[in-house]
C-alpha cells in the first residue's frame, strides 16, 4: 500500500460523508409516491393511505408495491434477482426503489 493509496481512501471517505450529509439535509418526510414503469408514469399515490398496487411488466412480469404506515416498499416480484423486494421501505423525498429488469421506479416525489 503506497502512501497515495491512504490519501485516496481518506479523500473518498470525506467526499462520501459530505455527500451523505448534503443529501440528508435536503430530504424531508415524503407524502406522495410515484410509480413509473418504462418511463411511463403509472400513478401517484399518497403515503398516508395504505395501498397495494400490482404493477405488470409487459405481459409476463409483475411487481407488487405496498404502501403501509407512511412508507412504500416492494413486497413481491417475479424478477430474477429480487433486489427490489429486499430493499428497505422508503419514506423520504427523493428516495427510490428500482427493479432494473422490469424498468420499475418507485420514487417519493414530495
Amino acid at each position, binding site marked *: *500500500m*503506497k502512501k*497515495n*493509496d491512504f490519501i*485516496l*481512501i481518506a479523500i*473518498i*471517505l470525506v*467526499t*462520501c460523508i459530505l*455527500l*451523505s450529509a448534503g*443529501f440528508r439535509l435536503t430530504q424531508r418526510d415524503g407524502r406522495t409516491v410515484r410509480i*413509473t414503469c418504462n*418511463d411511463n408514469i403509472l400513478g401517484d399515490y399518497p403515503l398516508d393511505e395504505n395501498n397495494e398496487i400490482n404493477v405488470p411488466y409487459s405481459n409476463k412480469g409483475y411487481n407488487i408495491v405496498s404502501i403501509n404506515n407512511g412508507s412504500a416498499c416492494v413486497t413481491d416480484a417475479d424478477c*430474477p*434477482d429480487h*433486489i*427490489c*423486494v*429486499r*430493499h*428497505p421501505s422508503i419514506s423520504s423525498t*427523493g*428516495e*427510490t*426503489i*428500482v427493479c*432494473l*429488469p422490469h*424498468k420499475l*421506479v418507485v*420514487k417519493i416525489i414530495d
Partner: protein
Amino acid sequence: MTQQIQRPQQIQRAHRISMYGVSIALAFVFSYIESLFPLNIGIPGVKFGFANIVILLTICLSSHIIDAYAIAVVRVLLVGITFGNISTMLYALTGTILATTAMLIAKKTGLFGTTGISIIGGITHNIGQLITACIILSTEGLIYYLPVLIIAGLIAGIVIGIITDRCAIHIRLSTKE
C-alpha cells in the same frame, strides 16, 4: 536482481494466448461462485467482484492494454449469455469498460499501488453502473445511492487489491526463470 531474458516472439505470443484462456476462465468461475452467495441488501450493484482479481492482475502484469479490456469484456459477455441476463448485462458492460479504463490510467500514472488502482476500479465500476441506470430509467433521483455505492466500491476495492497484491508477488516470483 534477476536478468530479463528475451524470449522469442512466438513463445511470448503463446504465453499471452494461454494467459487469456486461463484468465477468462478464472474470471468467469469467480463470477459464478460469487453469484451463489448474494449479499442480502436491497441495493443493486453491490458485490465484491472477485473476478476483478483476474482483471487487476492482467493490468499489473501485462504490458498490452488490450489484454485487460479483452478479458474484462469477454468475461461480462460470457456471464451474461450463460446466465441468461442479457438486459442487465448492459450495466455490467459499461461499468467494466469504465473501470478498466480508469484502472489503466491509474496504473499509467504510477501514483497508486495495487490497492489504490483496485479502489479506483471498484468505485468507477459502481458509478458507471449508477449513471447507466439513471440514463435507462430516466431517474436522476438514483444519485442518492452514490454514497453507498462509493463506500461499497471502496471496501471491495481494498479487499480485492490486497488479495491481488499477494497474488502478483507470487506470480512474479514464479515467472522468473
